[in-house]
């Protein structure tokens, strides 16, 4: 209950956006089973939102330490390229291990730059943001590498008990991250590092390892998102996979109420933030408005959602928070 209350503004925002979607498209909430898979616009929101949700699971930890990871989109592209190039010649576990391993390596690199070389996170990760897409294109040589492996394709288009695999993966990763971070003292250490790095170091926290760990995790999450994106279109589009998604992931984290200065974070709210953004995007697509309006509508919705959470306008949410 306590958890739900702390997410009241986000839930409210999600409900509001869904309502707007419903107004834009009457059959928005209709869901039915088709070919053993749930089918409907609402399902699309979760399915399409999955990559950003995965990204935001890593991003929220990075942001909690006061950092930022601009490279996640490029890491998606790299991991997707690796997965697609290997998919038809190796079994799925090998493919996954290679792709996720690549992502982990990227994350470790970012962590090294930030924690050991003390490069400011935004520039440190900008390096991989620029070079990473190049690396992805190097792997695919600029083309779209397609694959036929049904195993990998299942991760994008398959379903478990009717739930699309990407959504299943988000849930699995959410639970895994929760277990890892909240089940251990890592969460506390991350929040402490982000809240006051000097004090934390003096209290004996290994702030450097904590920093490296969150970037590594972010890389891993991004890699999984990349695999999902590649599995979805049965190919790796190194040029466009994950393009500008880092901004969506950061947006999701902020919508989740995290401060970009570091400190407190909530994993499930970050995922919810990603779905709020996707609900908005899907709504725009369903509305039939001309595409020139997309960005203007998006800007308006983002501002509205954030105003809803502004501390200055929190009278409404305060009411909800009171037991």
């Amino acid at each position, binding site marked *: 209950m306590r958890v739900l209350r702390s997410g009241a503004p986000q839930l409210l925002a999600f409900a509001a956006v869904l309502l707007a979607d419903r107004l834009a498209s009457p059959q928005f909430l209709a869901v039915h089973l088709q070919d053993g898979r749930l089918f409907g616009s609402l399902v*699309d929101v979760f399915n399409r939102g999955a990559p950003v949700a995965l990204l935001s699971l890593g991003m929220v930890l990075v942001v909690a330490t006061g950092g930022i990871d601009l490279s996640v989109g490029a890491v998606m592209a790299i991991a997707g390229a690796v997965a697609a190039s290997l998919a038809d010649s190796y079994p799925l576990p090998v493919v996954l291990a290679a792709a996720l391993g690549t992502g982990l390596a990227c994350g470790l690199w970012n962590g090294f730059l930030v924690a050991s070389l003390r490069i400011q996170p935004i520039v440190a990760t900008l390096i991989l943001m620029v070079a990473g897409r190049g690396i992805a294109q190097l792997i695919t040589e600029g*083309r779209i590498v397609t694959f036929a492996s049904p195993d990998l394709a299942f991760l994008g288009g398959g379903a478990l008990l009717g739930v699309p695999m990407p959504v299943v993966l988000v849930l699995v990763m959410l639970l895994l991250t929760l277990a890892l971070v909240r089940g251990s003292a890592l969460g506390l250490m991350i929040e402490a590092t982000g809240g006051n790095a000097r004090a934390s170091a003096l209290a004996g926290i290994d702030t450097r390892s904590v920093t490296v760990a969150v970037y590594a995790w972010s890389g891993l999450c991004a890699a999984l998102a990349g695999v999902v994106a590649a599995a979805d*279109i049965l190919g790796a*589009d190194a040029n*466009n996979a994950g393009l500008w998604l880092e901004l969506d992931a950061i947006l999701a984290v902020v919508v989740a109420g995290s401060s970009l200065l570091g400190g407190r974070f909530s994993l499930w709210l970050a995922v919810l933030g990603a779905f709020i953004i996707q609900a908005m995007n899907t709504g725009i697509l369903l509305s039939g408005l001309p*595409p020139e309006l997309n960005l203007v509508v998006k800007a308006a919705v983002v501002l509205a959602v954030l105003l809803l959470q502004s501390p200055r306008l929190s009278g409404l949410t305060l009411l909800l928070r009171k037991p």
Partner: protein
Amino acid sequence: ASLTVGFSQIGSESGWRAAETTVTKDEAKKRGITVKIADAQQKQENQIKAIRSFVAQGVDGILLAPVVATGWDSVLKEARDAKIPVILLDRDIDPAGKDLYLTAVTSDSVEEGRVAGTWLTKTVGDKPCNVVELQGTVGASVATNRKKGFDAAIAPHANIKLVRSQTGDFTRAKGKEVMESFIKAEGGRAICAVYAHNDDMMVGAIQAMKEAGLKPGKEILTVSIDAVPDIFKAMAAGEANATVELTPDMAGPAFDALKAYKEKGTVPPKWIQTESKLYTAADDPMKVYNSKKNLGY
């Protein structure tokens, strides 16, 4: 002496673009031309920088694949002042600068849209048909022109109605996402045809249709532009109907024109138009696929 040519390429946003770069290198090698390629990462300002630095390096000629149609006057003047001929590839620029370049090797993207539209009007005949459109990147001139040509072709046919049009950013993933939303918003069976501004989006859209239990190519007609290898695979599988070719070999004719101009002083025509050829399932898609698959798409 062998020529050194600078090529300001837009970037590598699609398979087609990668193929164009590959073909340019191959064609240059064939003719013994040294080509310096500057990749602009989709930015006009980078292309302008590249041209300036080509001029500073004193190359023999410049190929420019302009990212937008306008804004080239001053930098092209710099090239002209340095007596370096410029040839436009793949896209034209605004008419005001006609005397600023030697020639333009391009397709006509309005024409491409028109070819696609005409194919559709012929195929559906008098039957009512609701078309959905996957546009290219908002603001990209190719997208605007392909829309223009298509709209013009279907305008006289009242039975063909464009019911939805959204941007798929020229990418597979967005093409798929947008098509999914079209299917939900319109109801899959209500859609008679899909028109995509490029093949990549269409490949994504075909997947979306299949996942929604529809049969692209049969229940829903598809027509798109570019003629990249993957669309021929889909055609061979009966999942796609038509594509309009945009050849990646723009540099070949450009090099020839440049050589002739440099060596013999022959002034080429202002516009060397490439063919916008229509391919359908009748054109032995697998054969075309095989001929294209190693071009670097």
